[in-house]
């Protein structure tokens, strides 16, 4: 669904109902993209809320309706990548934190679900790769449209996507093999 001029105008005028309409339209998509990039639903919820708060605070900065969806996705991707970078900086030098993360990762690996394998695999990719994969497979976007969101040529996106798929496939396969190896063999 596309935001129409009237709805955006009402949001600019402080109409909470129109804002609610915007929230309902995009909230799930935003959470999904952010969660794929950050790897944590709780972080994704915070990022999503932050973006909605800013929209409500500064509605005059909303783009033209035709560009709204791409703009919003760009906000989510940028904010999520920025979040990850901040987290990385925070972790630098915090050895205990890294150990705990590794412990959590090991625990999760034992849970044997595709969702966890995918999350684990995605977490090993670069944030931008996660964004491209999420836009491609969660949002089912064409490469050209992903290029618009990420402000990169579609040819660049195409090669990045292929590389990301290759790495993801390898990581997911490894995770599955590891899981299968730990299972008792049927006799």
């Amino acid at each position: 669904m596309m935001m129409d001029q009237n709805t955006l105008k009402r949001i600019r005028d402080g109409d909470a109902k129109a804002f609610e309409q915007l929230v309902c339209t995009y909230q799930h998509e935003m959470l999904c993209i952010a969660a794929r990039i950050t790897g944590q639903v709780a972080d994704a919820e915070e990022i999503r809320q932050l973006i909605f708060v800013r929209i409500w605070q500064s509605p005059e900065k909303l783009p033209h309706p035709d560009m709204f969806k791409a703009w919003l996705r760009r906000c989510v991707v940028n904010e999520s990548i920025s979040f990850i970078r901040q987290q990385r900086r925070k972790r630098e030098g915090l050895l205990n934190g890294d150990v705990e993360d590794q412990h959590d990762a090991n625990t999760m690996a034992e849970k044997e679900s595709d969702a966890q394998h995918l999350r684990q695999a995605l977490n090993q990719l670069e944030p931008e790769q996660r964004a491209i994969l999420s836009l491609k497979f969660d949002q089912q976007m064409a490469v050209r449209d992903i290029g618009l969101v990420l402000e990169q040529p579609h040819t660049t996106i195409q090669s990045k996507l292929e590389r990301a798929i290759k790495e993801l496939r390898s990581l997911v396969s490894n995770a599955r093999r590891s899981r299968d190896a730990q299972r008792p063999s049927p006799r």
Partner: protein
Amino acid sequence: MPNDPVHDNEMETLHKLFQDTRPADMGVDVAAIIARAEEADAQSIQSFTHGLSSRKNSIPTSIWSHPMTIRSAALIVAAVLVFALFIFPATLGDKIALAQVKERIDAVRTVQYVETSFAEGTISQSPNSFAVSEPNLAQAIERREQQLKTADDKTKDDLEFELRFMRTLQTEKAELLYVRRVRVKGKQLERTDQLFPLSNYHVVRDAQSGLTVSFHKDRKHKETLTKQVVVKNNGEQKESAVAKISPSVDFFAQFTALPTKNVEQLPSKVINGVNVIGLRTSEKQAGNTWTRTYWVNEQTKLPYEIWSELYRGTQLTQRWVIKDFVYDAPLDDDLFSTETPAGYTSSEGTIYGMESK
């Protein structure tokens, strides 16, 4: 690749994997978002010399008065302080002495200019800088063209001025953030009209009385700032009546404070057929670098254009251009009226600022 069955199968598998593992979502509480936004508004900060831009208290700010959060406020206020370090060497080389510029500005009775801000590079990632898309500018121009058809003579002049300027912006490759028209009368009265992206309000400031009033055309509403909240460094807030800050408006105050060193003189050049000489300052602050270039008309000894740039590291993130200066043209007192127009409602507002040292 579309005809590659293995690849297609793999894409399908990945697509299914992503769809099957979408994160569960409880949804968003819209009321909580609005409450959080309003709470954030109450905590946001800006220098008391200027107005705050929030939903309820929308006041156009300028390069000298910028909407900001606590974090960016600290940066900008620091930069404003650094601004006090710029222009003034003992001489300006062979052609213009900065003292002459200062003297000329001091003698100016009215000044008008247009301030434009552009996003560069990563600005759209900044928490406070959602980028404005180019089609909005086209719409703003179209809106004025429509208004021009039925405008009276006085309004027509304004609209034509705005159109002339905004059309020149269409050739810019950078992302346009805002355009403001500023008119100053005497050294105390300033009127700022927001031209883009929204053009539905203006603000009048009286530096002498400390009065700041915004007029919202669409809502037919006038808001007068009556309270200020100072947020101290320890987070404590102190509320009081709005304080009078400067004896003159920004334009004059900045030039009055110009220091006399660390200014680079650039080769003279011609802008729009006018010979100008450049004076550039560069200041580092908390990992950011501000450069400001004053292009001074060699003949009049007055600023012709002012360019400012903000670098984060080596990345240019935002720049401002102040141009279309008009000096000493008559300006009607009505432009600076703070009276409530007929049919308008009115209210009082609060401005937030950080503790100054």
